[in-house]
């Protein structure tokens, strides 16, 4: 009876052992072998580079809106864009790294740079509508581009990546449409 009592009431030892087992499992999971770095196949390289640069552009847009937007909803929308595209880009880079591919760090295109400059130059009162309209159009174009590319991708992990990223882009598009609908109430 005494032994049983000890087993029931001794909380420290099992908890400590449990922590040790979990820590060991986490360490094993974290220890990934380094993959050799090289360029991806040509078509795949172009696609990943386009997706990467799109994420970078959306991150810049989101950051700008999170700082400059007048409406709290638009500001939160900017934060969602910033966060989601940051995570999506990190996942993309992890996928490429796991395959030993090196994605060229893409600079913003001339058109994207001009659009960002135009948004910065806008008076504060006009910023929200211009930003949300641009975000809606931008997400529509990105979705169309990725949907067209999806059929050509043979790598299963990249296909899976596109399949889970598209709904998030669609959510951004829906939110932009909703914000435009809310208009001055937003």
């Amino acid at each position, binding site marked *: 009876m005494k032994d049983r009592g000890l087993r029931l009431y001794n909380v420290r030892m099992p908890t400590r052992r*449990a922590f040790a087992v979990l820590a060991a499992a986490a360490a094993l999971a974290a220890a990934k072998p380094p993959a050799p770095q090289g360029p991806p196949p040509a078509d795949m390289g172009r696609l990943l580079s386009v997706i990467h640069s799109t994420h970078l552009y959306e991150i810049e847009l989101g950051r700008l809106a999170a700082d400059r937007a007048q409406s709290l*909803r638009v500001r*939160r929308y900017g934060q*969602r864009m910033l*966060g989601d595209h940051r995570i*999506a880009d990190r996942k993309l880079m992890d996928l490429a790294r796991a395959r030993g591919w090196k994605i060229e760090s893409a600079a913003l295109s001339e058109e994207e740079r001009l659009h960002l400059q135009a948004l910065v130059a806008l008076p504060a009162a006009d910023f929200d509508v211009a930003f949300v309209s641009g975000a809606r159009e931008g997400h529509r174009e990105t979705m169309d581009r990725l949907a067209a590319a999806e059929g050509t991708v043979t790598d299963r992990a990249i296909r899976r990546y596109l399949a889970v990223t598209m709904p*998030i882009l669609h959510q951004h598009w829906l939110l932009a449409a909703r914000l435009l609908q809310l208009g001055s109430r937003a």
Partner: protein
Amino acid sequence: MSRFPETRRHELSQPLGGTKVAVGFLSGVLAGAAMLLFQSVAYWHLGGGFWVPERQVACALYGLDALIDPGYVVAAGIVIHFTTSVAWAIIFSAILPLGASTWTALWAGLAYSVGVWGVMTYGVLPWFNEYMYQRVAFMPEWNLYGHFVYGFGLLATPSLRRRLRGGNLSSRRNSRILPLTP
């Protein structure tokens, strides 16, 4: 050896209805808080925003607007999360054998959390919160890790059970058993 073996056996074999619910409630709050905190910190660390998990949960009530609406949606998300968390913990408290050790509760809790993750992710979310389902599919590993933290939190169940039942035992001893002792 207990001085009152019959009484103790009797106590251990009782269905414990109220105590199970109370223990489930407390361990559900504890495990739910640990899970929510873990997920919020993880999202914040990944650059997604601290309150995104709560907003995702709130999409069940407010739709996609919950991602941009004011702070009340965060409160609603927290309420929904804890309600679900407590409900699952009460079931766990009811099925965990009486007298289970902390070690048993740990492994049972982790296995249970995988079951909860499967049911919630593939059985509940697609029907009740499609937007959260899409966002969970976007980063599934963190949702699973969050449920592991929940399962780890259920480790408190036997300890809470002993504390609550201990209180009952001593009160009964005082009222009924002590007068019989020499």
